[in-house]
């Protein structure tokens, strides 16, 4: 097989990855890594390097569309990013002394449960409970376009959300997987931030987190230019389409797609943990 043959295939896979990644806030890695390794027999390290770049491409591509439309929340993203990046550093630090295959299986099971949970919207009506004072002080509120008007929202249970974000970062440092799934779940289920705001803000955050580890992967030679080129271009094009579709899509449809992708990811993790 020559490059002229391989590159269009990789581009097509990446289009789908970028589309799903932008739609769910999970980044493109969920699709890119298994497709490159299982389908095309590419070494996992090249796949990881390409997948890391794909996360940045999805994030920056989609974010440029979302921010202008007023979905993602920079304050919430930046505040939670402190927890995620610290967690990621801590996870990378302890990774040599942790049984990652067992952890991978456990985390896969947790994700399966979370996928099921995320298909359901939170029911407690807003405005009855007094607002979280920490959310007030940190201005973790905003509004986003919904049904022709603007829907106001504010974050709840900030401390639990922050703690869970630290855990999300730690797991991504330990297992080398995108922390997007836990980020969306923490914002949506714990902090009660609207689903579209959660996924788009996650999209913003995963790019920053991925950029933090890009330097290491580049130095290790994981990022091969000939392979990453079609991945980057495909994912970028896919994410721009995904961002447009998200804006018009019904939230319950997005929840189901998110749950489906997270469930696939969970099975992948259990499989990887069990095989190793």
């Amino acid at each position: 097989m020559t490059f002229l043959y391989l590159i269009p295939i990789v581009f097509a896979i990446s289009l789908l990855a970028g589309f799903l990644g932008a739609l769910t806030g999970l980044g493109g890695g969920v699709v890119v890594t298994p497709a490159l390794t299982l389908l095309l027999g590419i070494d996992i390290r090249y796949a990881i390097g390409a997948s890391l770049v794909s996360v940045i491409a999805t994030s920056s591509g989609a974010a440029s569309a979302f921010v202008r439309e007023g979905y993602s929340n920079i304050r919430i993203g930046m505040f939670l990013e402190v927890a995620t990046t610290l967690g990621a550093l801590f996870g990378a630090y302890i990774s040599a002394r942790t049984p990652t295959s067992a952890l991978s299986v456990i985390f896969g099971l947790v994700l399966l449960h979370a996928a099921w949970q995320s298909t359901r919207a939170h029911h407690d009506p807003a405005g009855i409970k007094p607002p979280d004072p920490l959310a007030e002080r940190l201005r973790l509120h905003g509004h986003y376009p919904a049904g022709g008007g603007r829907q106001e929202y504010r974050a709840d249970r900030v401390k639990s959300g922050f703690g869970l974000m630290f855990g999300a970062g730690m797991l991504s440092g330990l297992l080398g997987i995108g922390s997007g799934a836990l980020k969306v779940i923490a914002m949506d289920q714990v902090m009660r931030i609207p689903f579209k705001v959660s996924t788009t803000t996650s999209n913003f955050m995963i790019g920053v987190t991925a950029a933090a580890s890009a330097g290491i992967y580049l130095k290790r030679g994981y990022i091969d230019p000939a392979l990453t080129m079609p991945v980057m271009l495909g994912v970028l094009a896919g994410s721009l389409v995904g961002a447009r579709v998200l804006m018009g899509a019904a939230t319950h449809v997005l929840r189901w797609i998110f749950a489906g992708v997270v469930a696939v990811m969970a099975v992948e993790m259990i499989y990887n943990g069990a095989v190793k």
Partner: protein
Amino acid sequence: MTDERFEVWIAILLRAGVLTAAAIVLIGGVGFLLHQGDATPQFHQFHGASPEYTAGAAIVRGALHLDWLAVIQFGLLVLIATPVARVALSIAAFALEEDWTYVAITAIVLAILLYSLF
């Protein structure tokens, strides 16, 4: 400066960075395919990208000499820089709003980011 104007500003920066990166990668990709498209990829075993594609200075040097793979790699560096630039710019934007809490929070994020990049 209002939140909305600041967000539009950031969106413009992001889009410009991403499109520049994509254009550079595309040029490098077309050049590579025209010259070496009939070569056989060796990705089944890990050899690691060669040293001229793994360090910033070497990549820039190669790109200036129109080594197409180095051009691609340079475009990827521009892409990796966009989220970093976004965080840096947010510090300035929060400072303009005189929101010092978020200047501090964003500075912490940038510090961790730069620490792990270098």
